[in-house]
């Protein structure tokens, strides 16, 4: 009863959101969610680019420290917290899409409720932890748990898509997505809690030097680059009519992703 009333209250409020409400009436909520998913994806590709770029300064730790201080300022700390929104929403909603498209789970309404409730919970938790977190817990332990859970998720998706008909690229986009599903939010939660303060070059370098974390990071890097790259190319495929322009952009996106891949790999090997 309370739940129903709460839902009605929320959906009534949501129906009044400017711009979105027009699309809710004419295309439905899932249309708005799909756009939100896209925008979050683009936002994350942009952030990831900046992120890799800044990390590349680790080769000269002094320079890195100077740069990273900048991100410790209050507005950036706030933005860093807000980053949790696109990350968790894209992750959970992506999970919902995989369930819908590949596992035939058509109970979308309840899945969507889970997506939103878990997203909100995550964002608040992230904020809370950012304020309270002490860094004494073994990072390795958390990573191990996260990576195990997530790899098994990815394995399920792989086994589901293995024998199915369809494009290998699309399947790989889903597989990388499922691999990142927990890893990226976990990464965000563990690594980005105190922006700029305890992220001295020495500490980051020490962390990456752990061979396990190094492999995890590399895996995440390539999964992310593929996932983001495919996503962007797919968007151009949806709207850009000219075949030439479409291929040109696809090549550009591929090269950009390859360049970031190179930067990231070089860093991991050097450290």
């Amino acid at each position, binding site marked *: 009863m309370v739940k129903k009333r709460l839902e009605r209250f929320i959906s009534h409020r949501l129906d009044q959101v400017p711009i979105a409400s027009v699309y809710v009436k004419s295309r439905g909520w899932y*249309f708005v969610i799909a756009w939100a998913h896209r925008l979050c994806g683009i936002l994350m590709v942009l952030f990831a680019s900046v992120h890799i770029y800044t990390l590349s300064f680790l080769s000269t730790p002094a320079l890195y420290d100077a740069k990273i201080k900048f991100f410790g300022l209050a507005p950036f700390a706030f933005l860093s917290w807000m980053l949790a929104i696109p990350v968790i929403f894209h992750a959970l909603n992506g999970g919902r899409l995989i369930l*819908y*498209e590949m596992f035939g789970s058509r109970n979308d309404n309840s899945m969507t409720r889970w997506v939103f409730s878990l997203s909100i919970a995550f964002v608040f938790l992230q904020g809370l932890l950012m304020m309270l977190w002490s860094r004494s817990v073994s990072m390795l332990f958390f990573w191990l748990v996260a990576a195990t859970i997530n790899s098994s998720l990815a394995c399920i998706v792989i086994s589901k898509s293995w024998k199915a*008909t*369809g494009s290998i690229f699309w399947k790989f986009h889903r597989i990388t997505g499922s691999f990142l599903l927990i890893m990226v939010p976990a990464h965000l939660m563990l690594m980005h809690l105190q922006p700029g303060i305890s992220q001295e070059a020495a500490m980051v370098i020490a962390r990456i030097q752990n061979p396990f974390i190094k492999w995890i990071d590399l895996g995440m890097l390539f999964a992310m680059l593929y996932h983001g790259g495919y996503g962007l190319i797919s968007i151009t*495929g*949806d709207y850009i009519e000219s075949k030439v322009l479409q291929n040109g952009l696809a090549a550009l996106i591929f090269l950009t992703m390859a360049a970031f891949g190179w930067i990231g790999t070089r860093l991991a090997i050097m450290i």
Partner: protein
Amino acid sequence: MASHYHITLKIRRYDPENRRSWIQNYHLEAGRILRFVDLFRKINNEQDPTFSWNSSCEHGQCGTCSVKINGKPLLACELLVENAVQYFNTPVFNVEPLEVAPVVRDLVFDLTKAYKRIDQVKPYVISPANPPSDQDEYSISPNEMKQYINATRCINCFCCSSACISSHRNFLGPNAMLASMIRVLDPREKEKAQRLKILYGHRGVYRCHSSRACSFVCPKEIDVAHFVALAKAGRFNDPNNE
């Protein structure tokens, strides 16, 4: 509920002679269960005979009178004044043609061009499997038919195509995917490889992102997105895969 409404239609008009496009307002008195096609006819008979619109059966069976009302693609013959006022919470309606093909005049768009995308998925049995005997029908269990029978209800009104998150220029369209899926699942069709090639081609299912706008707007209430997702899951009997 009121028995009469004062309706304002803001209709997007287009004159192909000088390629001019403008919005024209029409004010009407309308009974509560008049349909939007009745309103259009009323405009023709009482106010402006030059206003052009498309329709055929006018009871939701042919999909000719698709228009966008306040941004929502729908069949003008199925929208009652009373329901429209209630749904959009206003007596003022923006009326536009679907943008899935070039507009010919006013609300009439070129369905022939839109249909080219349906033609591409070959909406027929390409290569029929052999019937049990010469003078016999195929035996298809109701359960087997259940898988795809809903998709056969599609009338190609192109509302889904208009609502889709992808552009109709690059996507064959949700309705084309339905037409294709019917024959992928139909046991009478032998030629699956050719179909799958189109289905998974550049303009096929991967242009869909499960935004489910198609299912939301479908006047026949077909869960279009479900069928596209079935195609994406790719778990049907493909003879070439075994």
